[in-house]
């Protein structure tokens, strides 16, 4: 009891220290001067709240039946998805995909737009999941490859007049090439050191984009990038080339801008699904097992004749390739690319998706990507506190569910007894 009281006191004092500069002291402008205006009541309220919660914590914990050590162990294993038979599973997947395909025709334009963004992040998250989740290589510069993909399309359009579909494979290949070339020297490093170098790489790409003004347009970027065509049919009010048919003419529909939004959503969805399918196959293949083995123990891998360099490079290159595809699509969707879109915070966001979802867990990554893109949109009025909430969620996750929302499940093989 005395311990609890002391803890509660300490927590209240800490709260006061943390909260005072944020809520307690306010800069107000009075004429030409700024004055510091204290609001002590808010600080007191916050302290009182924390004190009360800390005081009642043991009691609350007992109420939920997870007191002491046993409770903590149970938490560590956590809740899991119910087991499904393969048929049920496939049925559910088909149903979900069908729902996702039909949904945009009924939903509002804004919702579809946000869903497109979510699909891009799913794709990026799944790509990074290969590098961080499967192979265990901490990559903080993932956005660099995303930028390479986006700028490849933008520059191919700007300098050579390429369309989206021609540029898409090239964008993927270019990002993969960057991944490969960077991977060679860098993958000798491990853990934190690798993270630092990749972080630097992401920044170098961004600085190059800003400074190679002649090629990339510098800080202004490249604009008026065309949207993807539907198998060669343009989606516009009037064809850009004289005499060509546009999508709505071909189908005999009235021209509506919402068609474009839905089309982009469906494309993003299919890209995300393809990424999901590929990464889902990969992890069950020898190469996927090798990635995991490498994450678990590199020395043991070497002792069994697995070439760690080659395995790491394949993960790094593949992850980069998916980022490249995502980048090209991003460029097409926005119609403009500029270095601002590829700051470190993007890398952090994608990494947060992977960590939040549960490293290596594809379903977890998808859910986390949706949460991270949709929640900020729903809570627009709290936009200023976005980063604050983000940090809070991360801390709470670390305390209660360090293995992520849906931790990776091991694939079991039927063993005849």
């Amino acid at each position, binding site marked *: 009891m005395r311990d609890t009281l002391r803890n509660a006191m300490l927590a209240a004092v800490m709260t006061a220290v943390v909260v005072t500069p944020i809520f307690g002291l306010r800069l107000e402008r009075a004429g030409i001067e700024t004055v510091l205006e204290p609001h002590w009541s808010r600080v007191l309220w916050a302290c009182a709240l924390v004190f009360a919660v800390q005081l009642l914590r043991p009691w609350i914990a007992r109420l939920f039946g997870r007191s002491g050590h046993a409770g903590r162990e149970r938490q560590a294993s956590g809740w899991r998805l119910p087991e499904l038979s393969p048929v049920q599973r496939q049925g559910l997947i088909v149903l979900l995909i069908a729902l996702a395909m039909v949904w945009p025709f009924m939903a509002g334009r804004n919702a579809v737009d946000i869903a497109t963004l979510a699909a891009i992040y799913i794709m990026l998250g799944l790509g990074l999941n290969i590098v961080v989740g499967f192979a265990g290589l901490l990559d903080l510069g993932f956005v660099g490859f995303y930028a390479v993909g986006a700028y490849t399309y933008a520059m191919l359009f700007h300098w050579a007049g390429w369309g989206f579909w021609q540029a898409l494979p090239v964008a993927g290949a270019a990002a993969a090439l960057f991944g490969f070339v960077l991977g060679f020297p860098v993958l000798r490093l491990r853990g934190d050191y690798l993270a630092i170098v990749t972080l630097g790489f992401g920044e170098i790409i961004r600085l190059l984009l800003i400074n190679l003004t002649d090629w990339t347009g510098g800080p202004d970027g490249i604009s008026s990038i065309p949207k993807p065509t539907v198998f060669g049919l343009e989606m516009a009010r009037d064809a850009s080339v004289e005499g060509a048919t546009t999508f709505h003419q071909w189908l005999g529909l009235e021209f509506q801008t919402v068609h474009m939004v839905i089309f982009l959503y469906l494309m993003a969805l299919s890209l995300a699904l393809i990424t999901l399918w*590929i990464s889902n*196959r*990969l992890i069950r*293949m*020898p*190469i996927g*097992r*090798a990635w*995991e*083995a490498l994450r*678990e*123990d590199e*020395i*043991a*891998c*070497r*002792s*069994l*004749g*697995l*070439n*760690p360099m080659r395995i790491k490079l394949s993960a790094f290159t593949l992850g980069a390739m998916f980022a490249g595809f995502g980048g090209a699509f991003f460029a097409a969707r926005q119609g403009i690319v500029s270095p601002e879109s590829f700051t470190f915070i993007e890398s952090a966001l994608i990494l947060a998706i992977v960590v939040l979802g549960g490293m290596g867990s594809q379903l977890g990554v998808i859910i986390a990507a949706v949460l991270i893109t949709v929640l900020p949109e729903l809570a627009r009025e709290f936009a200023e506190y976005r980063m604050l909430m983000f940090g809070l969620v991360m801390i709470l996750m670390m305390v209660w569910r360090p293995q992520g929302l849906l931790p990776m499940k*091991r*694939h*079991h*093989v039927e*063993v005849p*007894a």
Partner: protein
Amino acid sequence: MSTTPNTQVKSTPHSPVIPHGTMLEVQDLTMRFGGLLAVDGVSLTLRAGEIFAIIGPNGAGKTTVFNCVSGFYKPSSGRIELQGENITGLSSHAVAGHGVVRTFQNVRLFKGMTALENLLVAQHRQINRSWLAGLFKTPAYRRAEEQGIERALFWLDYMGLRGMANREAGKLPYGYQRLLEIARCMITRPRVLMLDEPAAGLNPQEKVELQGLIERLRTEQGVSVLLIEHDMSLVMGVSERILVMEHGKPIATGTPEAIRSDERVIKAYLGEE
């Protein structure tokens, strides 16, 4: 000795081809870490189908010899030959690719993966690795995967671990982890199996079983065994010849009987009067 996975799946475990002559030859091996001479002029010859032990007090340089042979260290000087082929200074995965695989003093399993997956990873060099075949599950790919699983199950049976196939390796009892690590080596179809203190942490019963296992691996699988061990009854019982090391130097080589009565060896172990 190049093996094709398709033809040898079933035959390997039952009809071992025991090669003749010298399997592994280490000549005048020296390993220097700065000013420290960890291994100084060690030579040994492992005959085909032989069980050869390296013993010596702690810090004698036994594991360093292992690390040099298995490619984890590049020796400062000396020469290592595998059936006449020079493998000195090759990287560790290349050495393993030549058929020299090892276990570790403190078991190194892929802890988060299942026992079966551990054995599948070890077959990485043998299973079809074409990406497209894997993505589209071609018949050849499926067959290769099934054979891989079959081989893994064979080795789980061999070690008496079948019931553990889907258990996480890191959560197996310690004795089973040791066995799984040996199975993981054997599934690569090695020519030389190097065991670094395989009996450490085992109870007396398990040690007896381990001795039987090592002998069976040699006779049934035709593998040559290089062994580091502190447990004298195991070493004396299982090995044909023994190398004794002290302070990085070889002090005696010979049969267990000769070693047991060698004065330098007794001095090294018991100290001088």
